[in-house]
């Protein structure tokens, strides 16, 4: 029987959050493709949602979005809203999706990255920050999506590794939680 170690969870999330915060503040502003930049808040929330999920995932998504909003000049709460919804959806299944299902997890993350980026920039368009939909889609959404997906790969590989006990890759409790309607692994 596996005993859930919540303290270990907290420590792991803390280290991951610190790493993503430093990367968001120090690296993201200096690495750009067009007008797009890596969204490490999205990466953090996705890792937590895919590995832990549930309430923890939702809360981490909200906090990550809030930190992202504080580090930009846009309205506060927009990225928090999007990452809360995204984390909730990604963390619905009662299992660690990154361990053993890295491919489908990457696809799921890519879909969320695209949607979050698109809705964020569309919302900025709606609040009057731009006048061109072309600019929103081509110059901002797509570069941000592409960079965020590329930057997620090392995180996905690291968190998909097993613990050396032979449990890596197995889907423990692999049956989706009751009420969970989305299972990218079965697509």
């Amino acid at each position, binding site marked *: 029987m596996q005993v*859930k170690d919540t303290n270990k969870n907290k420590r792991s999330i803390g280290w991951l959050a610190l790493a993503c915060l430093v990367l968001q503040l120090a690296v993201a502003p200096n690495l750009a493709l067009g007008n797009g930049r890596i969204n490490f808040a999205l990466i953090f929330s996705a890792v937590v949602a895919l590995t832990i999920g549930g309430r923890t995932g939702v809360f981490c998504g909200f906090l990550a979005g809030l930190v992202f909003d*504080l580090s*930009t000049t846009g309205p506060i*709460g927009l990225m928090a809203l999007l990452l809360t919804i995204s984390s*909730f959806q990604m963390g619905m299944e009662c299992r*660690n999706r990154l*361990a053993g299902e890295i491919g489908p997890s990457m696809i799921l993350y890519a879909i969320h990255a695209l949607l979050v980026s698109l809705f964020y920039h569309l919302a900025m368009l709606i609040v009057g920050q731009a006048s061109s939909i072309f600019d929103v889609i081509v110059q901002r959404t797509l570069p941000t999506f592409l960079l965020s997906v590329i930057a997620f790969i090392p995180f996905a590989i690291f968190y998909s590794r097993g613990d050396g006990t032979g*449990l890596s890759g197995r889907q423990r409790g*692999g049956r989706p939680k009751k009420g969970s309607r989305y299972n990218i692994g079965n697509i």
Partner: protein
Amino acid sequence: MNGGGLSSSGLHKDTQGNGSRLAVVLVVLSLVMFTMSARESNGGFFTGVRSVYSTITTPVRYVGVVVTAPFQGLGNIFSNLTANQKSLSELKSENAKLKASNVKLKEAEKTSERLEKLLALQSTYKLKSTAARVISGATSSWSDDVTIDKGSTSGLAVGMPVTDSNGAIGQIISCGGTSATVRLLTDENSRVSAMIQSSRAQGILEGSSDGTLKLTLISTDTSVKVGDNVVTSGLGGVFPKGLPIGTVMSVNKSAGALYYDIDVKPLSTTENFEEVLVITSLTEDQQATSEDITSADSQDSSSSSKSSSKSSDSSDSSSSSS
């Protein structure tokens, strides 16, 4: 225990529900914050929180600049490697001209300095300013701004104009204790009063997403050529008058239009920003004179009279055709 995927990272599955209630609460909270933040003017609660956050995270941004500094020049190296022979020969001839021009300018500068001493004239730009270092670029893909390492403790405040060695580059939009965010002229939300240096035609310089600047409200009555210098007009009292901004890249005149469509190439690019000057106050000489304001007003009135004459022409023609 179900579903607890154990990995080397130490993350375990949360088995206490899928957090739907918490998600609803946080979504509502986010929407409330978004609405309040969007309606907030400068100096509100969220501005204060952002200012504190900016102050706390300044050291991390420093680290980022230091770590990525060696890679900043990579773009230039690649563009130099791919430069063709034609561009190299053009650059050589331009360099020769600039050297000759530089000798003349140095001589003129000496003469000017002597004349200034003799006539006790003030130098062209006596900027009361504070030097600052750029520590970070834009964090989001949306805004075109930079963060500098000086804030309100150094006497900086929201609205102060910022220049680099080439001329005006932007304006402070938020100011923390030890750092400030500067909205660049190329940001889409940037609006600066500017004028064509040669013809003194005044207009508004706006940023755009492609990094160029658009000079608007320049009447088609005035003369504008490609290569003309664009400088700040001093109207509005924010930027000092006469600071260089860029050069005219293209001038388009649509049939029947009252104003030119002018693209301006900025003198400075974000990649070149290292040290900047924040102008903390303007002297009377640096502000627009009443003559400048009158000139701008007359430019507007001539445009509107032209507009009304055009509309009367069109109504005449429409009535004659009917």
